[in-house]
């Protein structure tokens, strides 16, 4: 069953698409072709201008020392010194990498299974499922910065809900041993709704005949989900995976709101910001940090591309 399941869904429309496409393009008139060209070229130009070029420039800047004042002639080339300094004498770097990794693992282990679980429940069309759907998704609409403030009301050491109930005196945002976890709880609370929504969409798209077939074959509810439905949702799984990777690497707002990413909440993104933005303006040093971040995310992007390319070929 598991082996036959995945091809079932893509099979019917895959040949259709490949058969249709060439004829469609061939039938385009001259003006259509121009508009298609423009539709591709204009966004590409924007992406190159606003994303690729700045990306390359910050890699270039990472080999320089520049305080961000004055023209290009004030930029001083110092080779790999920034990188050397980051790895050897910059104390916040190690904790930042660690915290990003913890962030990644936690995001993977907690909101993802929870989101799937909620999605499966909601997919059962329980009474009031629309209400729950909106309620769970509501957290996603809020900006992380706002989430940070909301949880501050719960975490505040003196007037917070949590200490009020438990009678404790833990400084949830201030104590470097617990603040990362406190922030992660808030993030997971937000992220769960997002994962849930993605999976809910995926579940709705699963062909009901598959479940019926599984039922006829005598599979239990759990078996049906893990061996039929879940594998069919492979594209959603990959999207969620990539979202988690990206969200964990660029995690920033909530931590910045709490304490500007210091004292137990260091993340690579906050180090980049505090070095580049603000009075400090260690442009070269900050760019080197940003480049390291770029390199790490490239690994995940490469893995993702490999998987999806592989998939395309298999079709």
């Amino acid at each position, binding site marked *: 069953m598991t082996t036959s399941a995945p091809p079932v869904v893509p099979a019917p429309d895959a040949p259709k698409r490949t058969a249709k496409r060439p004829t469609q393009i061939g039938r385009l008139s001259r003006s259509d072709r121009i508009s298609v060209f423009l539709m591709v070229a204009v966004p590409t130009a924007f992406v190159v201008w606003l994303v690729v070029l700045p990306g390359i420039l910050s890699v270039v800047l990472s080999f320089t020392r520049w305080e961000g004042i004055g023209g290009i002639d004030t930029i001083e080339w110092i080779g790999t010194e920034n990188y050397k*300094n980051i790895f050897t004498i910059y*104390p916040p770097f190690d904790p930042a990498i660690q915290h990003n990794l913890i962030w990644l693992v936690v995001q993977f282990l907690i909101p993802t299974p929870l989101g799937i679980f909620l999605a499966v429940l909601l997919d059962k069309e329980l009474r009031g499922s629309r209400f729950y759907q909106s309620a769970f998704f509501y957290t996603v609409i809020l900006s992380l910065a706002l989430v940070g403030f909301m949880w501050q009301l719960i975490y505040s050491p003196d007037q917070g809900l949590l200490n009020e109930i438990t009678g404790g005196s833990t*400084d949830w945002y*201030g*104590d*470097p041993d617990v*603040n990362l976890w406190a922030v992660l709880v808030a993030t997971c609370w937000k992220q769960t709704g997002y994962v849930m929504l993605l999976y809910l969409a995926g579940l709705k798209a699963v062909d009901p005949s598959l479940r019926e077939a599984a039922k006829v074959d005598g599979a239990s509810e759990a078996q049906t989900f893990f061996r039929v439905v879940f594998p069919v949702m492979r594209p959603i799984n990959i999207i969620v995976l990539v979202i988690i990777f990206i969200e964990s690497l660029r995690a920033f707002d909530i931590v910045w709101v709490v*304490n500007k990413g*210091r004292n137990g909440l260091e993340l690579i993104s906050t180090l980049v910001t505090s070095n580049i933005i603000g*009075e400090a303006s260690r442009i070269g040093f900050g760019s080197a940090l940003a480049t390291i971040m770029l390199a790490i995310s490239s690994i995940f992007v490469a893995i993702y591309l490999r998987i999806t390319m592989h998939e395309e070929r298999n079709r």
Partner: protein
Amino acid sequence: MPRPASEAEYLASLLPPSVAAGVGRRGFLKGALGTGAALTMPALLAACGGDDEGGGGGGGGGGKPTGTVTFGSNEAGGDVPQQRRDALVAAYEKSSGLKVKVNAVDHNTFQENINNYLQGNPDDVFAWFAGFRMQFFAERGLIGDVSDLWPIDGMGDAFKKASTGADGKQYFVPDSNYPWVVLYRKSLWDERGYTAPTTYDEMITLAKQMQSDGLNPFAFADKQGWPAMGTFDILNMRLNGYDFHVNLMAGEEAWDSAEVKTVFETWRELLPYHQENALGRDWEEAAQGVVNNESGMYYLGLFMFEQFPEDEREDVDFFNFPEIDSAIGADAIDAPIDGYCMSADPENEDGAKDFLSYLGSPDAAAAANEAGFPLIWANSNADVSGLQPIQQKAAEFIAEQTSIAQFLDRDTRPDFASTVMIPALQQFIKNPDDVDGLTSSIEEQKKSIFV
């Protein structure tokens, strides 16, 4: 309708040829509109101001300045400092006939954006700090020379020195300053019979006494990253003296030297008398501890007393941080000066300078006094009769000091202060035992920044 030929020639002679072309246009505009009409057309003037920077400046041009002065202010909280500023601006507009366009941003944002702000399209006059932080930008050509406003009547040499850039010119007009001192509530101290300590040992004894009385001796907070710098500064100046502070901030002394280690070791002895969990608390919360009689005293800037309710402010008093080493004494303090600068290319230079000289004058102080409590006016001719006793005491106190430092993050490179010192001091508060590791890490990072 160009201006009189002689003046145009005079102005042109002051300018490099590339800029001189703009003078004619500006002169034309001024002539055409007349001084009165110019007031109603500030936008038009501003619009063509872009390429005639400095055109009206230099010689002071034709008598009274006109038009609009843009003013970048770092007070946007709607609180007392903003009311003071509004009163100042209103009074100036009334007396000068110029219009001041205020562009207000809150304190921290203003500071963090200063780089982009100054390189973008800064206001003619903007609020800033004296000392290294001003010199840093002046050296890079981002602050305008206002030497012709100096000397300012009522401001002594100390203020002039603090307003002077590395090239010997003045780039700053002081407005006010405030000392870092140990603040406490008088009625609580009278009730418990505490007296202000004058030596380190007396201070420790007092702290112990407070602890046994169920008080937390020193209020303490460092969530924002800068308050602990004050503690470092004062211990450093008490143990190693003012000159060492200056050299250390300039990057000329080693951070892993025995002197700096002593500072941290002394601080470690004092930490048990400080409020715990300082890293999760902001200074406003810590100040509330003093207001509520939970903490006995607080080493902070004088501005702390504004956290007291208005009718209790007469109950606040302060004392100088006591002497630790009798060879060094206790006559050096942090007393940061706030004030104003002119941007390097103001659109209305005459107006900017006129406004700046007003800002430094006793008239400005008088106008702002009506709006609420200032800290301490830089100008000694300012009317201080309406001030709180604590402010008058602080003004006299500052005058008695031999050496006045600005503050750690105002006396050293901004990148060093924010990316190295903030994390380092927080690390120390978290783990005060590894002084050797901490100081050598600071020194290594310092070497990578002070190149």
